[in-house]
Structures are given as C-alpha cells and as structure tokens.
C-alpha cells in the first residue's frame, strides 16, 4: 500500500471542502458490506495458516478443533458479507433484484463455494478421511480470496462495483497471488503422501461428501468460466462479449437440486435400501402428479424443490417425535434453510412481475391486480441532498414513497426505491422521469418470496453460528 498505492500522496488540485462521499456509500448497509467481506477473506487466511501448519507438523485432534472453528467463523463472516450486499442491492438498486451474476459478486461467491465444500470436508476429518480434500479446499478458498482481491482491485473487470482502477496495484496483487499459489501447490504436492487416508465406501456419508464436493466444484467452475470468459475473449481474441445471468442460473439450478437431493438422501441413510427406493418412487410420482395438476407456467424445478423441502420437514418432525431431540440440529436447520431458500428463489423467478407505468399526480390506475393512487409530489431539502418524493397509496392500504435524490455537492441523481414487504410478496415502486405534461414514468413490481429468502439466509447463518460456537 505504501509503495504501490499510497493514500498519502498529495493531490494537485484538492477540493477545498472535499468531494463528498459517493451517494451510494452514504448508506450504512453498504458501508459495512466490503469490510465484512474482506474480513471473511482474512479469516480464510487464518484457516489457510492452520492447514499449512498441519502439513508441516501433522493434523492433530487439537488442530482439527481450531480448523473447524476458524472455517466456521470464516464462512459465517463471508456469508454475512455477501448477504448484506444482496440486501442492499434489493432495497437500494431498485429493480427488486438481489443477485445479478455481476462479475464482482461472482468473485466473492467463488471462495464462498469453496469454503462451503471445506466446511463439509471438515465434518468427517476426525477419522482423517477426506484429509487431502480438506487441505486442498482450505488452500483453494484462500487462493480464491486473494485472487478475488486481485481481480476486483486491478481494473480488469467492468461491473457495478467499478472501483478506482490501478494497474500497478494489479501487478502487485497478482504477484502475491502467484507467490501463494506456487508455494501452496508445492507444499501440497510434497506432503501428499502424509494426507493419504482411507477412501470412502460407496454409499457412506463420506462418499456423499465427496459427491457434494464434486458438485460444488462444478458450480464453482461454472461461476469461474462465466466470470472470466469475457476477459479471456477481450484479451486474447480482442472481442467483447457478455455472459448473462441465464448462463449461470441454467447450469447452477439443476446442480443445486442435486445437492439438495444429496442431503435429503443423507437424512434417510439409516433406512434399508428397499425403503429408500420405495420412498423415492413415491416422491417421483408426487412430482409428476404436481406437474400435471399445476398450471403450465409453474417451473419443474419449483416442483422438485418443493417436494424435497416437504420431505425434509416431515423427516425432521418425525425424528423429533421419536427422539424428543434432533441429532445435529445445526445440520438439519442448515440444510432445511438451503432447501427453503432454493424454493423461495425459484418461486421468486417463476411468478414475479413488473409493469412500466406513466401516471400523473391525482391519477389512480389498476395494474397487476393492484390499485395505485398517485397522491402527490413533494420536494424536500435534506442536509446533503434535495429530494423529490412521490407519494403513492397501494390498494388503499399502504403508502409507497419512492424518491429521486439530487446530491448537492457531486450533483449525482440517485433513485430511492420504495418497498413494502409482507411474508408472501413485496411491492416496489421506482420513480422514473417527469414528462412535460407533469406525468411521471415509474416501474411497479410485485416480487414473491423475498421475505422467505432473507429468513432462510438468516436461519442458515444461525445454524453455522451454533455449529461453530458449540465447538469452542
């Protein structure tokens, strides 16, 4: 930082009163999101250190204890950081989106995916099974964090997260990444024989974890290719192309369902093969029935995720009734949250709608089975911005007040979305432009399942928190 990118260099023409903080950063949620993500990366550096120490001095029970705690802390922090970014995007960017497969989002997602696989590989490490997987994943997660920092700060990417780009900083970060990669790789190869352990048996839990790791690696590969391929074509072929969200969702969606199938199967592993076969047959029939009965616009993967969720819930209730307690409640809760989140996300994509309207103050219109009254426009001066507030009443029930803010120092115009949430759906209005006749354009959306998405994310974090703390 001192040599390559010193913040202490003097500016030739310094703005006397400062240039004001970027309006997007003037939101507390967004201000805290990058430090937390970066903390996640830093904690994975700690995990990395423990693993490298293990390579040198062996993996004792005590080392595993530390590793499990630190892997848990890292994953929790990184997940929390990503979640904050997603929440901010939903409430601030205005289009009801919480994930865009934006390159920088993907960059933070990659260590998260590897970290998830790491967490799972640590579960059975007490028997020193999956040791090489675990070491590999710990190294990979850390390297992806360093790589992520390099990509984001070097100016290679174009995204909503365009930071100040600095090629010399880029070379510096790339060198750090290269150094760590080669050293870790060399150490891994050198100590590979030390990490050899019994191969999991077919159909055992460890085997499931191996499958889980492979599928997660597949998802990681999809994100990696989708994010970096445009850079590849620009640098090597001198062409510009874009990879849209469809690439990611079409490939990753079925893979997530496979993961859900794996952990659902895990809950039933104690049963006989025959029973499992019969149950699966029953579920397939149920899925087919639902597919036939439900309207044509219902996605197939929505049906699958619903079936899996129902199965998980029934099994959990059954187990609880039998034993008066749940074995490994954090695992049950964590997997349940993933299934619930997947269902909510698919539901959101299946049914959410948006309409562009043009409306004048005093008008009342009916769109998407909702009544929107445009009451009035107010202009309010706040401390560092002027605000144009549009007062809407929806269904004669609640108010939505989207704004356009004009920041006094920098002159930026930012749109503030108005959101009204309930358990099932959210109503959003984004204010557009004013026409000469006094009417305004606006985008009115109804988004389904958003509350459930946040809730399940919260439950997932809680499950990890519990799982980590109980080890301490």
């Amino acid at each position: 930082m001192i040599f390559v990118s010193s913040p202490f260099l003097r500016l030739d023409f310094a703005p006397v009163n400062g240039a004001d903080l970027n309006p997007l950063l003037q939101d507390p949620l967004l201000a805290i999101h990058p430090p937390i993500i970066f903390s996640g990366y830093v904690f994975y550096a700690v995990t990395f250190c423990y693993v490298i120490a293990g390579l040198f001095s062996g993996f004792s029970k005590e080392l595993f204890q530390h590793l499990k705690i630190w892997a848990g802390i890292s994953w929790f922090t990184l997940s929390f950081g990503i979640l904050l970014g997603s929440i901010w995007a939903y409430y601030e960017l205005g289009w009801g989106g919480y994930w865009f497969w934006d390159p920088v989002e993907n960059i933070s997602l990659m260590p998260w995916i590897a970290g998830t696989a790491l967490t799972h590989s640590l579960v059975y490490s007490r028997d020193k099974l999956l040791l090489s997987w675990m070491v590999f994943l710990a190294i990979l997660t850390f390297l992806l964090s360093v790589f992520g920092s390099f990509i984001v700060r070097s100016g290679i990417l174009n995204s909503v997260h365009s930071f100040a780009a600095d090629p010399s900083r880029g070379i510096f970060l790339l060198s750090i990444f290269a150094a760590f990669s080669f050293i870790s790789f060399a150490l891994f190869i050198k100590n590979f024989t030390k990490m050899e352990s019994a191969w999991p048996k077919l159909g055992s839990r460890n085997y499931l974890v191996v499958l889980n790791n492979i599928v997660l690696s597949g998802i990681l590969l999809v994100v990696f290719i989708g994010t970096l391929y445009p850079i590849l074509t620009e640098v090597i072929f001198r062409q510009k192309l874009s990879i849209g969200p469809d690439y990611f969702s079409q490939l990753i969606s079925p893979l997530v369902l496979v993961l859900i199938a794996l952990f659902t199967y895990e809950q039933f592993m104690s049963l006989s093969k025959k029973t499992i076969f019969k149950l699966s047959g029953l579920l397939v029939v149920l899925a087919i029935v639902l597919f036939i009965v439900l309207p044509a616009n219902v996605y197939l993967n929505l049906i699958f995720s619903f079936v899996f969720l129902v199965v998980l819930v029934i099994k959990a209730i059954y187990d609880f009734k039998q034993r008066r307690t749940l074995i490994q409640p954090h695992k049950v809760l964590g997997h349940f949250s993933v299934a619930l989140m997947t269902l909510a996300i698919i539901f959101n994509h299946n049914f959410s709608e948006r309409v562009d309207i043009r409306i004048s103050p005093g008008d009342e219109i009916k769109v998407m089975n909702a009544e929107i009254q445009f009451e009035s426009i107010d202009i309010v001066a706040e401390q560092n911005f002027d605000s144009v507030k549009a007062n809407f009443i929806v269904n004669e029930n609640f108010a939505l007040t989207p704004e356009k803010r004009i920041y006094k120092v920098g002159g930026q115009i930012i749109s503030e979305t108005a959101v009204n949430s309930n358990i099932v759906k959210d109503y959003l209005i984004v204010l557009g432009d004013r026409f000469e006749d006094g009417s305004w354009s606006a985008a009115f959306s109804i988004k389904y399942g958003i509350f459930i998405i946040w809730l399940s994310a919260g439950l997932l974090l809680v499950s990890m928190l519990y799982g980590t703390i109980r080890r301490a």
Partner: protein
Amino acid sequence: MKNLATFFSIFFLSFFIFSDQLYPGLDEQQLKRLNYLSDNIRCPKCSYGNISSSNAPISKDLKEEIAQMILANKTNDEIYDTMSERYGDYILLNDVEKRNPLIFLAPLIALIISISVVTIYTIKKSK
C-alpha cells in the same frame, strides 16, 4: 351528434387506458415480450446490467425502440440482430449456449467425468 359523442368518449376512454402504460399501444402479451427482450439486452453505457434495470437514458431509449419494433411486428431474432449489428455481440445477454456452446458444455462434461471416475474408483476400492 351521437357519433361525435361516441367518438369523444372512445377517445377519452382510450386515453385513460393508454395513459396507464409507459408504452402505449402494446397489449399484455407484447409488454411481456418487451420485458423479456429488455432483460436480455445489455445497457451499453453501464458497467453491467440489462436495459430493464437501468436508469440510464440510453436504456430507456433502447427500450422504447424495442417497443416500436414489437409494434412493427419484428421477431425477437430480428430485434436481437438489429441491436447486435449496431452495438456488437457484447449487447446480447441471451442464448450464450447457442453462441458459445463450449463454455456451456465444459462444466457439464467435467462434472460427468469426475463423478464417473470417482464412482468407479469407489466401487473398485470397495471390492
């Protein structure tokens, strides 16, 4: 006189119907098409994102232009072609698998190979 009254009432009535929408003249099906196409056209002035979820003036202009093309009965492919002809392939967010099948297939092939190899190896080791 009656005709005039009918004319005016239809005129004002249609004004209310059309004044709700930002894209007057498009029916529900066409609006859905507009949203779908806009979701797949990248905003040329933004760092990332489609013209649907962009506040940039160019995005609104392009959305308006697409609306006009829909009204002129152009097909989706014709609309995509017009856009990519003007701005380059960069502007298209859809159909990645058609234009670059390899990047779509690569992860799938890698997965199938890995799972097969691991399963076969595990079965062998179990014996």
